[in-house]
């Protein structure tokens, strides 16, 4: 298959872009345009990769490999399966939107937009790398490298408590990464035992996985597991996420929750189920319990948040519960649903983050209580807030319904009790979304963010009075352009998800074969 150049190009284009933008950082306008140009170029490359990929072809495609550290058998090896491909496509889709959304970002003093966008592009390279690596050591390097731009993006460009949040994010991730490093090296050592010569090549490791004793599998998997559980994050390892998401600039929040966290769930599939099938099955009950707790606990906490960005973070924790449930319920519907969920969550939570950001850009506060009745002032923003919310609560007709439905319907045959408990999350999701919408958008115009503090009945700041003139404007053309592609995908993938499912499903069934699990429900003879 030609197209071997595509992944290296996808990997390095944003890095080059990052350098160029960093050089242009003294000219805001030029830097912005360059960043947008590079990110759109990346999107075009991703489209080519999507076209070049044959869903029913080899397990890994668009592969390329260069020796990197031959002494240890480390290769700079790239390749994708359908699961990695859709995640790379998601990254390439989200980054231009994030850049567009950050166009007029208010940054802390002394920071330039060029510097900000440059780091975003560098992070894009590492995010692509994490999904494209087919060498376990290379994966580890990207996994850790991702931390660095993320740390600076939060710590230098974030909100008031950014230093604390960045440190917390860094500590959690680093801890997970170190434990994973132990397992990465452990895998190498065991492969040397089995093959005579150590390797980091994922495909080879997947082949020898069944030769490992369950105990060895268990301990090796545990290292990966902790790192992924922190990244995903599973309750109770989640508390870094609300802090990071709350303090991060909105665009970084989108990438953090929309993409970075998915490395955890992606890792469960690629490095958990495929490399350590027995250990995955052994740990499945634990994950299922944590997943369902996450769904319910995250939902209640989302409902109880007073800070809008923390609210989005907790909705994500609930959603990650669904993703983990689907993966560890071991059916092709549930796992395909989880992978699709990873994509859809990036889109819908990305949009939720952005609209919350647009609300905050107008009111200047992160607190729900400072807002009320805003839809009267900004009907379009109100409507799009609702669209994002409805996608978040997985309303049929939106993208998220398809994935949530697949997760639940696929999990049910194996795990009926967990599935029914998780279904309660559907009601809770409606509760937290509609509560947020009601608080910010419905009712009479109120709240200090929208109405001047000195306002009273009859005064110019009383929204009921004739002289009231709101300084709050509805969405600008730029903001509409930023949100339009998200809305299009929310509805488009809700009505016709087949193109994405067709890419995901063969890789999911291959993963299941590697894990040695079979579908609980198989097509009947003679069925259409």
């Amino acid at each position, binding site marked *: 298959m030609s197209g071997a150049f595509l992944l290296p190009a996808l990997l390095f284009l944003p890095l080059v872009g990052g350098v160029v933008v960093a050089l242009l950082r003294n000219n805001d306008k030029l830097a912005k345009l360059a960043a947008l140009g590079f990110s759109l170029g990346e999107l075009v490359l991703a489209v080519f990769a999507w076209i070049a990929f044959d869903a029913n072809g080899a397990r890994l495609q668009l592969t390329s490999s260069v020796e990197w550290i031959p002494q240890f058998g480390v290769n700079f090896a790239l390749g994708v399966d359908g699961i990695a491909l859709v995640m790379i496509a998601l990254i390439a889709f989200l980054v231009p939107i994030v850049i567009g959304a950050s166009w007029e970002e208010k940054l802390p003093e002394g920071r330039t937009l060029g510097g900000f966008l440059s780091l975003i592009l560098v992070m894009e390279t590492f995010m692509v790398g994490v999904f494209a690596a087919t060498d376990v050591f290379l994966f580890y390097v990207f996994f850790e490298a991702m931390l660095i731009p993320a740390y600076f993006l939060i710590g230098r460009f974030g909100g008031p408590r950014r230093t604390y949040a960045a440190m917390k994010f860094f500590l959690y991730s680093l801890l997970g990464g*170190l434990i994973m490093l132990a397992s990465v090296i452990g895998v190498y050592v065991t492969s040397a035992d089995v093959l005579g010569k150590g390797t980091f090549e994922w495909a080879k490791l997947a082949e020898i996985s069944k030769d490992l004793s369950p105990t060895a599998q268990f301990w090796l998997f545990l*290292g990966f597991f902790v790192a992924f559980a922190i990244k995903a994050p599973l309750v109770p390892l989640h508390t870094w996420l609300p802090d990071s998401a709350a303090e991060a600039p909105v665009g970084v929040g989108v990438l953090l929750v929309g993409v970075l966290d998915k490395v955890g769930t992606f890792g469960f599939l690629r490095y958990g189920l495929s490399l350590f099938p027995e250990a995955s099955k052994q740990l499945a009950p634990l994950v299922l319990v944590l997943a369902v707790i996450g769904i319910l606990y995250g939902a209640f906490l989302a409902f109880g948040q007073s800070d809008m960005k923390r609210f989005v973070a907790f909705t994500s924790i609930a959603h990650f519960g669904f993703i983990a449930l689907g993966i560890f319920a071991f059916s092709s519907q549930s796992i395909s*649903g989880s992978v699709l969920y990873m994509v859809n969550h990036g889109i819908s939570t990305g949009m939720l983050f952005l609209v919350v950001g647009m609300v905050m850009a107008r009111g200047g506060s992160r607190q729900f209580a400072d807002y009320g009745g805003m839809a009267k002032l900004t009907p379009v923003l109100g409507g799009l807030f609702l669209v994002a919310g409805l996608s978040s609560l997985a309303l049929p*007709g939106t993208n998220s319904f398809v994935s949530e439905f697949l997760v639940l319907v696929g999990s049910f045959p194996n795990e009926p009790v967990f599935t029914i408990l998780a279904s309660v999350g559907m009601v809770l999701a409606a509760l937290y979304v509609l509560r947020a919408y009601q608080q910010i958008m*419905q009712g009479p115009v109120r709240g200090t963010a929208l109405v001047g503090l000195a306002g009273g009945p009859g005064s110019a700041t009383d929204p009921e009075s004739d002289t009231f003139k709101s300084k709050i404007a509805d969405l600008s053309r730029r903001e509409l352009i930023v949100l339009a592609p998200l809305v299009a995908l929310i509805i488009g993938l809700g009505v016709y998800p*087949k193109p994405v499912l067709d890419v995901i499903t063969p890789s999911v069934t291959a993963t299941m074969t590697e894990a040695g699990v079979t579908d609980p429900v198989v097509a009947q003879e003679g069925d259409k």
Partner: protein
Amino acid sequence: MTSTYLAAELGPVDGIAQYAWLLVALPLLGAAILLIGGRRTDRWGHLLGSATVIAAFGYGLALFFSVLGLDPEQRTREVSLFSWIPVEALKVDFGLRLDPLSVTFVLLITGVGSLIHIYSIGYMSHDENRRKFFGHLNLFVGAMLILVLGNSFVTLYLGWEGVGLASYLLISFWQHKPSAAEAAKKAFLMNRVGDIGLAVAIFLMFANLGTTQYTEVFERAGELSGGVVLAIALMLLLGACGKSGQFPLQAWLPDAMEGPTPVSALIHAATMVTAGVYLIARSNPIYDLTPDGRLVVTIIGALTLLIGCVIGCAYDDFKKVLAYSTVSQIGYMVLAVGLGPFGYALGIMHLLTHGFFKAGLFLGAGSVMHGMNDEGDIRRMGGLARKMPITFVTWGLGYLALIGFPFLSGYYSKDAIIEAAFGQEGWRGWVFGGAAVFGAALTAFYMTRLMLLVFFGEKRWENLKSADGRAYDPHESPKSMTVPMIILAFGSVFAGFLLSNGGLLSGWLAPSLGKLQVAEHGVIPHAVVPLLTVALSALGALVAWLIFGRKSVRVPVERPAASWPVRAARADLYTNALNDWLVVKPSLLLTRAFLVVDNKGVDGIVTGTATVLGGGSSVLRRTQTGFVRSYALSMLGGSVLVIAAMLVVRFA
């Protein structure tokens, strides 16, 4: 059994039926243009919105007549549009099922929908967001058509939650009112509780049959074990209870009256809230297999019809009385479909006649309120018959139809249900028949009370002012509002006779629902039932007149204190308080507890651990200058862990 009457094979799709997707596409296109187009479409939005629904009705009529030209065995057909959610064994098809049942609903939805769109042109003429209103109404019609036309339980679910969204948007249409926003949220949440039931039913079907398509599920329902069939039946019932306002999920429907009146008429009376009845009737091959499941359905129906009647007697809000009346009438329908082959078609018949007269009653209520400065309190009305003659006559016909006045619509459809209920064996006949006939008497009571307080007696509004400080000046509504009311009044009068005459409707529906069976002998003779019903209804009306209608009676404008049963009914028989205590309060408590646990407990312990384990790096970062250096150092520190882990692996 009845299933032999169901069409086993699907008929060929040809001619006009190929374009059935237009039914769904037209209103959805209207919604998309109006909602995306925004203010630019303000001038003509209401016209486009009405035109799409009228066009869909026109197509529906043509489709109906083309189906009439087919043999009954050929009348069940499916149009496959595209593969929606395909993953291995799960193949959810996006297709339309065209059969007598769905075509009947198409006519109801687009027919009543068209009238209500036209009515809304006048009713909403003063609202600056009229265009948005029509956008939402179109969205509703599109979703409702998906609900009834979908050919699988998942497409049904799509329409099911779609109408829930439309209902949410329309209840909170005046969203600057906190009460409207609250009511909309409550409706959506209680519906979602029911939706869990529908979802679990779908999971059960997939787990046990590997499919969610109607044809396959119905064909192979017999393979399911009794327990699974019962579970599916009960879960579907839970879904039906949410959407149709049946016990224990009925409390949202009266609150939903916060929405504009056309919405109450179309969504919360004539169409959406009957979706639960549709669901059970549609799933008749499943319910046929489980007598226990059907028994639960009848119990829920009987209980709800009584709850609705009792509370309806006590309310003073015009629309809320009608809302509880809707709850109660849907109770009759649910009771009917719970009777299985004896009642599926009767439930649908009552659903259709109810669609006419209840929509008419709501539009009449809207017309009254429109002329009364949006006043909803019937204690502040009275003597309006002369002020609004057209409203009075059309409303009066709807009223007579609802209480089952002989030879009007409700007389045929409700009596048939009461007869079928008495046709059950043993205690069931007495209990269900008794509940139904007692409900009829209560219905006559509360509807007569409503009639008397609004249209007759003293003009209590003369010396009062409305909430906005204006004096009341009741007047008849414009033509765009009265014409739909007149058309619906014709339906209230004649629909029952036309549909029941010679078993017209039940025969037409037989390919979808099986042949309607009639009990040989019930607990009381057939001939007695209509007499009994009419006599008890007359008694109910008489009692209402004695209390509220006589010349000597003065109805106080303020609600008087009352004895316990009335107070209980005014408080919704404490169902809201119960929900509050059982669900709302515990949830809030749980949320608060979790917030404390998460902030103090989980974060403290886990972050603390992480800091201790990763502590080296944190300390180094503070004391040394470079970030990268500390990172490198901590990686070094990590190698200690690596060695430990390798030892574990080696010697494990």
